[in-house]
């Protein structure tokens, strides 16, 4: 118990004393190193298994980061966005995936995905609230892009529904992770950590943008 208190005290001193920037910098460096290794959606795995569907959304770092950012920003926005988001997002994303599967044209998908991480990261970093309608449009457009990108590369398989369900559940769980992470803002040092995380997400966005630009 004492040790817990001292740990909390240490963290508080660390964060309140303006000495949290080194921690942020460390996080950035870590991400910078990890990103290239984990980039790109996997191609492997047939649609036949639940595992393939479950792993598909969690293996591309840009996607994972954007989904967690959506949850985090939902937590920043508070009710009603925080509960509207996990309900509406999967359906919009699935619609985007339908467009992708049918090969309907949607311009600027790669750019949109890279931008999504950057924009959401900045919004989380600034703890920015927007009017409900604007927020819905922003998240909706990103959902569409992410869905489309997935739709284009989804493998064919026998058990389409099981694969799809696992896919959707994995995405939903990523949101949940973001929302739960967002709950740490209730602690005194929480907002700072959130801002750091937002900054990290924005960095991933910038990195993706560079990739898109380079390609």
């Amino acid at each position, binding site marked *: 118990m004492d040790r817990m208190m001292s740990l909390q005290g240490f963290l508080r001193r660390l964060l309140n004393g303006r000495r949290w920037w080194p921690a942020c910098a460390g996080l950035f460096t870590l991400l910078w190193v990890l990103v290239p290794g984990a980039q790109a959606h996997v191609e492997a795995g047939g649609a036949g298994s639940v595992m393939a569907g479950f792993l598909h959304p969690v293996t591309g770092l840009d996607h994972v980061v954007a989904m967690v950012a959506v949850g985090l920003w939902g937590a920043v926005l508070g009710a009603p966005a925080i509960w509207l988001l996990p309900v509406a997002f999967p359906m919009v994303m699935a619609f985007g995936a339908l467009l992708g*599967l049918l090969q309907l044209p949607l311009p600027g998908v790669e750019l949109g995905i890279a931008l999504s991480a950057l924009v959401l990261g900045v919004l989380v970093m600034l703890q920015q609230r927007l009017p409900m309608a604007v927020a819905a449009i922003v998240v909706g457009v990103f959902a569409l892009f992410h869905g489309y990108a997935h739709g284009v590369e*989804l493998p064919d398989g026998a058990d389409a*529904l*099981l*694969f799809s369900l696992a896919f959707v559940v994995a995405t939903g769980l990523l949101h949940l992770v973001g929302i739960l992470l967002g709950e740490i803002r209730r602690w005194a040092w929480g907002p700072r950590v959130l801002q750091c995380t937002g900054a990290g997400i924005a960095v991933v966005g910038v990195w993706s943008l560079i990739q898109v630009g380079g390609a």
Partner: protein
Amino acid sequence: MPVLFAHLMETGFGGFYDGIAHLLITPVDLMLVIGLSVLAGQQGPAGGRLLLALLPMSWWLGGMAGQWLRFDTSLTALTTALLIVVGVLVALARRLKAAVLALLVVVAGLVFGLANGFTLPVAAGMSLDLLGVVSAVAVLVLLISGQVVVTQRSWLRIAQQVAGSWIAAAGVLALGLMLKG
């Protein structure tokens, strides 16, 4: 179109239990029953009673017709479309008119029953497999919609909507995969 979801489970406990197992391991059927149960539960006890009265009966009628017709299709596009409709309605958590709900339930029951009937083994006289499926449908409907009716906490209600959203999204994705494939 290939028969996608024809999991014919053999429990070794006879046709009745094979039927129960068939429902429990066929994702599209199970998701529809769960979705409809949540939807009916969201409408209050009257909705649950309506579902209990109509779904098993229409499922059974559809199944009988299916076993008699035995077409070599799985109606996958139709069942998935119904799944999407049900999922979206659950996600919206709107009050429906009783007549609309009844129509949806009867259509869903008949279509899914037909799809089951095409694949389930036919026995002379009454099919125990079909009886098992229908019994499992009735029991699931009762247990789930009963629980949904008494759920008061707001986050649990949102969880129900999220479940509906997942069902709809999975349906849309599956439909897309089918149209592509």
